[in-house]
């Protein structure tokens, strides 16, 4: 079959469109000049400066903590939700429940953030917990919406899994918990890892919801970047963004590799 020029050209244009901003950001992070748009030769001084900026390092540490904890919680809760929805089927209103679990995927972040903020405020007023807003409230908020992503990812894996495999384990004398840890968990493990990585990335990335539910002393990396950028983009931010891109790329590659490896079995 003869292929025309059209498709390769369009594809190439598409990739340029996607990656030129990121590539230019990476290149300018090595810019010697203090002006972001003027090239002044190669340098790694912004990276050094970044490592000496306590505000950014602190925010990065907070984001990392929030990301790890909320991704872990979201993976646990999302997996339980997915198992309940796929394995304890034939319940009236199951379709509605599935819809409700996945609704946060399409819910505008502003609404999620606002509703969580209102919830936290009224909870604090009623039983004094969570006291104030900070890391804890961001973790809760991130867990809430990441959970939906995990549930969807794990659910699709569970649906593909042959029920008879779990039944076989049960038939061979394994009690339900045993079946879960011996059979179900290893088989859905790849989806748990990708669900965790997805949640972690979402948490690391989130600005809107975090802005609503954060408090003093709990500024995540996106919040700090955003507030800095409002005062003007600095090459330091470029360096930081480059580092984030590298971390995310490594994470995605690991997830992809694990998924590919497990699919064969």
């Amino acid at each position, binding site marked *: 079959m003869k292929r025309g020029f059209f498709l390769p050209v369009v594809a190439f244009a598409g990739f340029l469109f996607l990656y030129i901003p990121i590539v230019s950001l990476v290149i300018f992070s090595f810019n010697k000049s203090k002006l972001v748009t003027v090239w002044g030769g190669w340098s790694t001084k912004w990276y050094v400066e970044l490592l000496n900026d306590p505000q950014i390092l602190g925010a990065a540490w907070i984001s990392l903590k929030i990301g790890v904890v909320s991704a872990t919680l979201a993976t646990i809760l999302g997996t339980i939700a997915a198992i309940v929805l796929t394995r304890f089927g034939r319940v009236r209103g199951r379709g509605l429940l599935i819809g409700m679990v996945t609704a946060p995927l399409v819910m505008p972040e502003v609404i999620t953030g606002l509703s969580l903020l209102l919830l936290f405020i009224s909870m604090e007023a009623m039983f004094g917990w969570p006291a104030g807003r900070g890391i804890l409230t961001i973790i809760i908020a991130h867990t809430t919406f990441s959970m939906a992503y995990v549930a969807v990812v794990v659910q699709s894996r569970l649906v593909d899994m*042959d029920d*008879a*495999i779990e*039944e*076989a*384990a*049960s*038939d*061979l*004398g*394994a*009690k339900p918990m*045993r079946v879960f840890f*011996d*059979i179900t968990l*290893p*088989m859905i493990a790849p989806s748990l890892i990708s669900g965790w990585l997805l949640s972690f990335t979402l948490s690391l990335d989130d600005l809107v919801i975090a802005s609503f539910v954060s408090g003093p002393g709990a500024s995540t990396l996106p919040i700090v970047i955003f507030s800095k950028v409002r005062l003007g983009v600095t090459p330091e931010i470029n360096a930081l963004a480059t580092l984030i891109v590298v971390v995310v790329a490594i994470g995605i590659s690991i997830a992809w590799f694990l998924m590919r490896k497990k699919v*064969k*079995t």
Partner: protein
Amino acid sequence: MAELPLAADAKPWKDSAAVPFIRIKNITKKFGEFSAVDDITLDIYKGELFCLLGGSGCGKSTLLRMLAGLETPTSGTIEIDGQDVADVAAFDRPTNMMFQSYALFPHMTVEKNVIYGLLREGVPKAEAKDRVADMLRLVKLQDFAKRKPHQLSGGQQQRVALARSLIKQPKLLLLDEPLAALDKKLREETQFELIHIQETLGVTFIVVTHDQEEAMTLSTRIGVMKDGKIVQVGEPPQIYEDPNSRYVADFIGSVNMFEGTVDVAVSSTLRIKSPEAGIDLLVEPVEGLKANQNVSVAIRPERITLTRHKPDGAANIVEGGVVEVAYLGNLSVYRVKLASGKILKVTKSNLLHDEEPISWDEKVFLSWSNAAGIVLTT
């Protein structure tokens, strides 16, 4: 493994004093309004290889799953070896199941798959390993112990599934379409292997299948199922030679069916008028028939003799023309059209080299004995 297999001539189902090993009493399973299994009562004896045979959706797999404890009956009771198993969960039942999809644990090696059941039972690891090695030798997989299921062929996976379900020496082994995924040649070999293993271990087998040949080859008895009910239970020859309904006659093997009405009995033969056949059909007398009652007469294709010249005798001879011939090697299948337009299927074994085999468009005579016709009322 000291239990003796059922001796070839032992037929406990014919002995009214024999105690059934499995007692299924009035079992019903409903999914919503639909009865997948509808009031089945069935006794199965120790050492049997019992086949549940039926088309898809007849409820045979549901019945099997209820025996395994994977489905809960809507009503009725199941007793295994004298114990009511209603409140016994699947993981505590003395049964094991071989699944149609094999359901091997994909992340475990063959050895780990097979040992799994023993370890759950609390068998010490060293002993369990020995037993697994023995079992793998029995199913000829000793060289594949360290492989993962996806590295095995379909036939090998089937044997892993069988080994895994046999390793705990269950009182009852349930097999759901055990050979369905194998190709024809392998399936035939495996059928005999399965019988051999069943005889060696003396375990009671219940096999679900939709393949009537498989049921005939394997079983001590067959239960033919339709729409959630068992329509006939019997030994393979009995099911084949003496089906109790049109459904069974048609389902097991191929059959020619004539509609007709009962005429009066003529001395030791029963006469059935059949416009479809164009003659009166003579069959062996059957009790309980009334004159003018509508019946069907089933005649197996291999019971019909095909000749060019009119055979001696007067009864059960019809004339027709050959419309199709299919040469299958060991036998040939002829389709012969009668004057009424009815097409009969006749098989002729190719024992001898006919100088001139009967061919398309030839005028032929079909004949059969009185004993060949099976009278069916339902």
